[in-house]
C-alpha cells in the first residue's frame, strides 16, 4: 500500500513536471530582467554600446522538445539609448532608424535548431523587421538556466547574439568600414504564465 502511494506520488510529480516544462513565458521587461543591447565599432578603434529600453515579447519552450521553441519580440525603436542625447536624436532620425515612420522593430521566430553537441545551445531562425525591412536572421542562442524564483514564480533565461549588416536594413549612413555591422546582444528572462 505504502509503495503504491509512493509510486503514484512519483508518477504524479513526473506528470506535473513534464507538463510544467512545455510552457509560455512572458519576457520580464516589467522587472527589467531582459536586455536588447547592441555594439558597433567606432572607426575601428573601440566598441560603442547601446540598447533599446522599451520592448515586449514572449516565448514558448519545452525542455523535452526544444525544437518547438518559438519567440516573438516587439521593440520600440524610439527607445534607443547610447547615453548621449545628441547621438540618440540622430539615431532616431532618417539617417538611421527612421522611428517616426517605423516606430517598431519586430522579431518572429520561424524555427529553432538545437545544437547536436550541446543541448543548451542552438540557433533560432526568424524574421527580423527593422527600418521597414524584413530579413531572415539566425540568432545563436544559449540557454542560461531555469527554475523557481524566490517569489513563487518560475523563470527561464537565454542569451543570444546575432550580427546584422546595417545596409541590409537600408541604413547606409557612412560610419566607416569598421562599422558596417552591428552586433545584437540579447539577454532574455521569461516568467512562466
Amino acid at each position, binding site marked *: 500500500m505504502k509503495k503504491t502511494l509512493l509510486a503514484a506520488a512519483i508518477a504524479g510529480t513526473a506528470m506535473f513536471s513534464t507538463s510544467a516544462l512545455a510552457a509560455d513565458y512572458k519576457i520580464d521587461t516589467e522587472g527589467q530582467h531582459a536586455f536588447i543591447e547592441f555594439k558597433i565599432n567606432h572607426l575601428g578603434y573601440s566598441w560603442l554600446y547601446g540598447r533599446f529600453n522599451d520592448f515586449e515579447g514572449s516565448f514558448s519552450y519545452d525542455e523535452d522538445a526544444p525544437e518547438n521553441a518559438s519567440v516573438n519580440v516587439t521593440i520600440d525603436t*524610439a527607445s534607443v539609448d547610447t*547615453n*548621449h*542625447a*545628441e547621438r*540618440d*536624436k540622430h539615431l*532616431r532620425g532618417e539617417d538611421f532608424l527612421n522611428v517616426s515612420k517605423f516606430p517598431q522593430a519586430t522579431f518572429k521566430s520561424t524555427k529553432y535548431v538545437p545544437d547536436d553537441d550541446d543541448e543548451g545551445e542552438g540557433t533560432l531562425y526568424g524574421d527580423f523587421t527593422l527600418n521597414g525591412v524584413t530579413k531572415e536572421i539566425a540568432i545563436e542562442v544559449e540557454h542560461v538556466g531555469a527554475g523557481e524564483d524566490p517569489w513563487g514564480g518560475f523563470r527561464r533565461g537565454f542569451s543570444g547574439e546575432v550580427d546584422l549588416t546595417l545596409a541590409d536594413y537600408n541604413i547606409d*549612413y*557612412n*560610419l*566607416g568600414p569598421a562599422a558596417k555591422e552591428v552586433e545584437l546582444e540579447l539577454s532574455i528572462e521569461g516568467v512562466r504564465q
Partner: protein
Amino acid sequence: MFRNTSKRYGLVSILIHWLSALIVFGLFALGWWMLTLTYYDQWYRLGPWWHKSFGTCLLILTVLRVLWVMANPKPAALGNRIEVIGAKLGHALLYLLLFTVMISGYLISTADGSSISVFDLFSVPATLTDLPSQEDIAGEVHWYSALALVILAGGHGLAALKHHFINQDTTLVRMFGKTERK
C-alpha cells in the same frame, strides 16, 4: 553716446542689434549646413562646436540686451498707429522667438545631463534633463522656431527698408546712430 535717448539709439543698443543680426543669420546658415555633413567631414564635430559656442554667447548677449532695453529710454516708433502697434508686436515676437530658439537648442544638447562647452573656455551645465523624448521635442521646437525667427527677422529688415524708401523716415538710419537722413 553709449546710452539711448528719446531721440536716438546709443552705441550699446546699435552694436548689440547688429551683432545679434549677424549671429542669428550666421547660426541659422551654419545650423542648416551642418545637418548636411556626414561622419567623415572635418566640420562634423567643429560645426556643432561653433554653433553651440556662438549660440550661448547670443543667449548671454540677449539677456544683457533685455536688461539694457529696460534701463534705457527708447526712441519713439515712427509711422501710423497700425504700424506702431505692428512694430511693437513684431519686436516682442522677435524676442520671444530668440529665447525659444536658444533655450530649445540648449535643451537638446543637455538632455542627457551633458554640459555645453563654449569655445572650450567654460561650460554651461545642464538643468532640465531626462524629460520624455526631450532631445527630440526640443529639436523640433529648435528647427521651427529658428525658421520662424529668420523669416520674421527678414520681414523686420524689409519693414525697415519700407520706412526708409517709402515713408522716407529715419527708422533705418537711427539704427546707424543718426537722427536725420543724410
